[in-house]
């Protein structure tokens, strides 16, 4: 997804750039076609004008001829007006038109020929008019009758027809070019418009995609932030938990180790006191010993001294036990864990087998639900955890009913959750946190125990990347919920204790 997006975002700007280049080319082509159109139309127009002027020239020559004929027939001076006008105009016309004709592709020879023919014709007409003016009418008619003027005129007409054909052809060609150029202009404008729409669409699409990418990136960042916060919260919880444990440790050391010390100090003093009484008694000579000192000495030797010694001994033993338990717990916290694939059914069956004797004695039973999840964890730690929990469930069974202990489990989000549910005597609400503390026990103290098992269970479960919680209804039963990392290596990777 990420790779596809980056290829896409590199590809689209390239496409847009190509489109822009193409659009520029189309604009240039349009410009070219527009210029061509203009040029062609100019040329077509020029050809038409040239044709027009050629026709005017012809008309002038014809006017001059008509005027000459009129004068020859009537001899009246007024018929000569058009001739004179035409003669002047023809010279003028030739000055401008001959260059244009050559430009239009009419050969120099033809133009020269036309010029000479027109000059000849005008010369013939001038001659006849001159003869007429001189009164030599017959000679003038004779000149006309030679048909040379008619031949010249015919040839002029023929050249004019050729010029007409040539300019017509030029006009046609230019019109053709113009139509073509106009067609291509239309095509390139249409193409440009389409391309423009595509480009704008592409740009909008790109902008939208980009905006969406930004939004996705922003969301990802926000998620990361959230995750970071969650992790920080988790870490803080771990630290707070570790801190609480440390506090409860110092409390334990403060209370539980001090208590036997107070006894040892106290009974040592009692011992001294009793010893002093007995020493005092012994120092007296037998005749000064009265009943009271005798009684006190007997009490000291027979009662106080053995009592004090007994308490001192038991207190020392108690202290030794406490220190051993604290050390055992500390050692459990530093033991190297082994990660091995474990089958809960097999593991718990072993634990149940070791309890079988006591189960049979009390008529209790352990039911392992199907679907206990497989885990990768430390075998010894799990045996100790579930050994303790099952042992407690049997130990604190309600004597009024047969104990049934259900063990069930699920796996989700990388954690295995194992429930150990009994129908025992239950745990009062105020004790549900206390029971996990060292040397603390709940309910009537009528079963043997030192308040160590659950402290041990909690320390072990936490080392396996999880925690243990308890749900209970007093008088109905208790469920211990053990959550552990399905793979203890992942818990270690997260740096949990």
């Amino acid at each position, binding site marked *: 997804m990420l790779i596809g997006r980056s290829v896409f975002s590199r590809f689209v700007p390239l496409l847009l750039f190509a489109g822009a280049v193409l659009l520029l080319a189309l604009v240039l082509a349009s410009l070219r076609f527009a210029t061509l159109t203009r040029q062609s139309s100019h040329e077509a127009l020029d050809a038409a004008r040239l044709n027009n002027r050629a026709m005017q020239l012809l008309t002038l020559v014809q006017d001059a001829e008509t005027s000459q004929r009129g004068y020859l027939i009537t001899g009246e001076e007024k018929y000569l007006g058009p001739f004179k006008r035409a003669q002047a105009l023809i010279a003028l016309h030739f000055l401008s038109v001959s260059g244009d004709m050559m430009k239009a592709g009419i050969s120099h020879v033809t133009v020269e020929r036309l010029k000479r023919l027109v000059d000849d014709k005008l010369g013939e007409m001038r001659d006849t008019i001159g003869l007429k003016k001189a009164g030599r009418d017959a000679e003038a008619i004779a000149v006309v009758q030679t048909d040379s003027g008619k031949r010249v005129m015919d040839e002029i007409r023929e050249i004019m027809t050729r010029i007409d054909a040539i300019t017509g052809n030029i006009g046609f060609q230019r019109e053709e070019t113009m139509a073509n150029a106009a067609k291509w202009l239309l095509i390139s404008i249409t193409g440009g418009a389409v391309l423009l729409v595509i480009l704008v669409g592409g740009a909008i699409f790109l902008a939208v995609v980009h905006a969406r990418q930004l939004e996705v990136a922003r969301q990802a960042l926000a998620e990361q932030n959230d995750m970071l916060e969650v992790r920080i919260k988790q870490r803080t919880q771990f630290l707070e938990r570790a801190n609480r444990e440390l506090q409860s440790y110092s*409390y334990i050391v*403060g*209370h*539980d180790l*001090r*208590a*036997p*010390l*107070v*006894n040892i*100090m*106290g*009974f*040592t*003093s*009692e011992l001294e006191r009793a010893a002093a009484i007995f020493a005092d008694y012994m120092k007296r000579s037998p005749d000064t010993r009265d009943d009271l000192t005798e009684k006190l000495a007997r009490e000291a030797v027979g009662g106080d001294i053995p*009592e004090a010694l007994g*308490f001192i001994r*038991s*207190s020392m033993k108690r202290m030794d036990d406490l220190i051993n338990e604290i050390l055992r717990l500390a050692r459990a916290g530093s033991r190297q864990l082994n990660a091995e694939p474990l089958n809960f059914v097999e593991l718990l069956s072993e634990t149940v087998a070791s309890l079988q004797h006591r189960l049979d004695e009390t008529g209790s039973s352990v039911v392992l639900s199907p679907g206990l999840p497989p885990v990768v964890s430390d075998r010894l730690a799990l045996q100790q955890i579930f050994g303790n929990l099952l042992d407690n469930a049997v130990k604190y069974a309600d004597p009024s009913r047969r104990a049934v202990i259900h063990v069930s489990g699920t796996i989700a989000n990388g954690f295995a959750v194992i429930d150990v549910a009994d129908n025992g005597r239950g745990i009062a609400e*105020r*004790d549900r946190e*206390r029971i996990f503390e060292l*040397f*603390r*026990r*709940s*309910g*009537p*103290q009528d079963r043997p125990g030192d*308040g160590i098992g659950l402290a041990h269970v909690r320390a072990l479960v936490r080392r396996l990347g999880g925690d243990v919680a308890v749900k209970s209804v007093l008088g109905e039963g208790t469920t211990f919920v053990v959550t552990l990392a399905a793979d203890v290596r992942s818990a270690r990777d997260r740096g949990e204790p």
Partner: protein
Amino acid sequence: MNQGLHPVVIIMIEDDQGHARLIEKNIRRAGVTNDIVPFETGLAALSYLLGPDGSGKVHEGKPLLILLDLNLPDMTGMDILARVRESTHLHHIMVIVLTTTDDPVEVHRCYDLGANVYVAKPMEYEKFVNAIQQLGLFLLVVTVPEVS
């Protein structure tokens, strides 16, 4: 000191038998001759104090005094203190907390919960004896309220 027909009964709630014995010895040495009823667990003490109906009515009219250790195996002394102060009949009897810690937070909590006196068990035996005997002298001069 006039406790009428019912002299003060001292309820001693202390799980450590050694402590219980030392306390008793030293109270006796201070001249206190009142009955001392010892309990080693919170549950046993509470069931005695509150009686079968859970209100403490069984001790009506009797002056009671509780010597309470905070650190019990089955519940904390705080729980017992709270239960005593909640009960209709026992709520104003005298409770003396006698325990190993002198942590100020703990001391405060005890007074907050309605302890009348807080005595830390000192490590040096002379101080311990002194504290207990002072307590004995204190018991000789105070008038202990009866259970209402």
